[in-house]
């Protein structure tokens, strides 16, 4: 009798706990038709360095001017990974997010973000056209966000150790690599696309078209390649300071990287980056509005502010990325006397941007529109665990 009572209490608690968790699938709602009065507050989920308020470095503060002109007090939450961003967005407590492609499609599909009325963003017209209406920021003919900035995943090596400059991703996928134990790779399921991109050229008979739209056979081949690669990997990275340290110290000599890592490394003159002949994957970040946003007007004001040339210049220079707004290039020169930033990051090079396969969340309904038997992202995550063993 006594135990039955305890069991009853336990069941009640469990039901209570599960009732609190929301799992309803909502549609993304409607886009704003006009920007009204600001709600005096704005809660953002951002990558580190996207909403600087002077606390990291007093020289970089674009949040305060925004607060002064809009009256929206910004609270920003830094997320370390795309998964964390997705998780935070699903709480519904935030107004917007600077999502990368490996979470943006998931956010759209889960109904966590609303369509964005781009005509309300004055600076939208100035943004690089190759960043608009892409598969990672629009769906069903609707726009779900404003482009922010982008970058490629380069192949980097230490010229002291790797004396023959590699020109192919084969350098990191060769199981007989002479740099065994000193190879690095990006630690996220989305990295499977890097293997698929390599196989697109290396094994044309697989018929890979888009590295984010893989059928089971193509997917299995990519996973098998990565399992081979695992043998030569020293460590995987997803924190850029971690891989930078490893390249500086010499425990890593070759692997995937971002341009900013090469630029900031203390031994930058010993490091070389290249886009190998197979092309490259990359990331393009998008400001998205939560479908449960409590302060949508402030979020629109923020999206317009962050894409203005002057602010884009500060973010792109501070973070080390190509600004979505090419007008920022001249501003970077004015603000920081750096005329080469946009050239280094190839910000206005449309052909370069087109050659990059930007991260996008894979799903069953193929992103490239060719069928509905693509391997969904959940399986990518499971496979990533198996690859690492």
């Amino acid at each position, binding site marked *: 009798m006594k135990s039955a009572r305890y069991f009853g*209490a*336990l069941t009640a*608690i*469990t039901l*209570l*706990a*599960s009732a609190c*968790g929301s*799992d*309803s*699938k909502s549609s993304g709602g409607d886009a704003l038709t006009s920007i009204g009065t600001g709600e005096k507050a704005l809660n953002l989920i951002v990558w580190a360095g996207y909403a600087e308020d002077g606390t990291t470095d007093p020289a970089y503060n674009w949040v305060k001017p925004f607060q002064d002109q809009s009256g929206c007090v910004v609270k920003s939450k830094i997320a370390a990974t795309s*998964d*964390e961003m*997705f*998780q935070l967005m*699903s709480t519904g407590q935030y107004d917007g997010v600077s999502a990368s492609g490996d979470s943006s499609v*998931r956010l759209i*599909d*889960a*109904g966590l973000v609303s369509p964005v009325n781009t005509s309300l963003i004055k600076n939208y017209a100035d943004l690089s056209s190759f960043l608009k209406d892409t598969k990672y920021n629009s769906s069903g003919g609707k726009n779900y966000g404003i482009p922010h900035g982008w970058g490629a995943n380069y192949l980097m090596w230490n010229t002291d150790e790797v004396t023959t400059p590699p020109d192919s991703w084969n350098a990191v996928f060769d199981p007989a690599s002479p740099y065994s134990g000193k190879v690095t790779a990006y630690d996220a*399921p989305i990295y499977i696309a890097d293997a698929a991109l390599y196989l697109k050229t290396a094994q044309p008979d697989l018929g890979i078209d888009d590295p984010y739209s893989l059928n089971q056979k193509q997917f299995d081949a990519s996973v098998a390649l990565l399992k081979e690669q*695992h043998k030569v*990997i*020293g*460590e*995987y990275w997803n*924190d850029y300071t*971690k891989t930078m*340290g*490893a390249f*500086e*110290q*010499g*425990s890593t000599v070759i692997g995937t990287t971002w341009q900013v890592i090469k630029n900031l490394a203390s031994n930058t003159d010993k490091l070389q980056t290249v886009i190998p002949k197979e092309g490259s994957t990359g990331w393009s970040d998008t400001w998205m509005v939560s479908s449960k946003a409590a302060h949508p007007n402030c979020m629109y004001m923020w999206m317009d502010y962050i894409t203005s040339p002057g602010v884009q210049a500060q973010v792109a220079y501070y973070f080390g990325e190509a600004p979505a707004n090419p007008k920022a290039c001249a501003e970077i020169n004015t603000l920081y006397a750096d005329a080469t930033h946009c050239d280094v990051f190839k910000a206005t090079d449309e052909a370069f941007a087109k050659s990059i396969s930007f991260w996008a969340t894979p*799903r*069953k*309904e193929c992103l490239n529109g060719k069928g509905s038997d693509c391997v*969904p*992202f*959940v399986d990518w*995550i*499971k496979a*990533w*665990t*198996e690859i*690492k*063993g």
Partner: protein
Amino acid sequence: MTATTLPSSPGRSASRWLHRHPRARLVSLIGAPAAWMLVLYVGSLASLFLTSLYRLNEDGSGIDQVIGVQNYRTLIDKSVYLDIAARTIKIAVLVTLLDIVLALPIAFFIAKVVKARWRRLLVAAVLVPLWASYLVKAFSWRAIIGSPGGVLDKTFGFSPNYGEVGLIIVLAYLWLPYMIVPIYSGLERLPDSLLDASSDLGAHFGFTFRKVVLPLLFPSIVAGSVFTFSLSLGDYIAVDLVGGKTQVIGSVVYDNFSADLPFAAAFAVVPVIVMVAYILGIRRTGALENL
């Protein structure tokens, strides 16, 4: 001056009422902490277990609240998850053993060898690393064991580098105070006269240690091992920083929790089961009664 002159206040009448109702007294005393314990502790565990029985819907965008054991089947069917679970337990066991070996002489030295006035200082010194952030310590170990180029490598020309060995060393360092403190307090309670008696009867130090000290210390060692074992079992941040490409249960849970919460919950149940089995095993030895 009579008792009737005492003023009657609401507080007084409440205390009178409580005096006459012992049950209400009990509820008001432990009601809040018991509810806290039940809702936050038992409730979260129950919710974890329940979630582990759910499944992801077809397109992976939400959770279907249908009860089933498919997540556990995946864990058993795919050898990779068993490998990871076994590796995690192995690491936790090795970290615990290493900590016992390191903590015994240190604790013995502090409790029985040094003069009393140094004792407090040394105990404080053992505890000082706990004031520093766990992350800071894990990151410094990154700089120490990296190879080539790390501190160890530069000084001795050899270093374990990032990987399982490095990870075990770092975890053993991180949790060492949790092993030293219980062993130290166990030794403090051990009367010196027992050691004297043993040596008077002709036992050398090793014999005394094995036959007198160790049996009396066993409950303390067990208490310490519950800390080091469970902390190692749940860690995934140090694993990421110094474990190289090592995967443990925590890293798989972390990788899956946003995309496939039910599966992550199912794998998170594994360390709970291991811990329960561990504690039940300890209970059989009777160590818990002697704590």
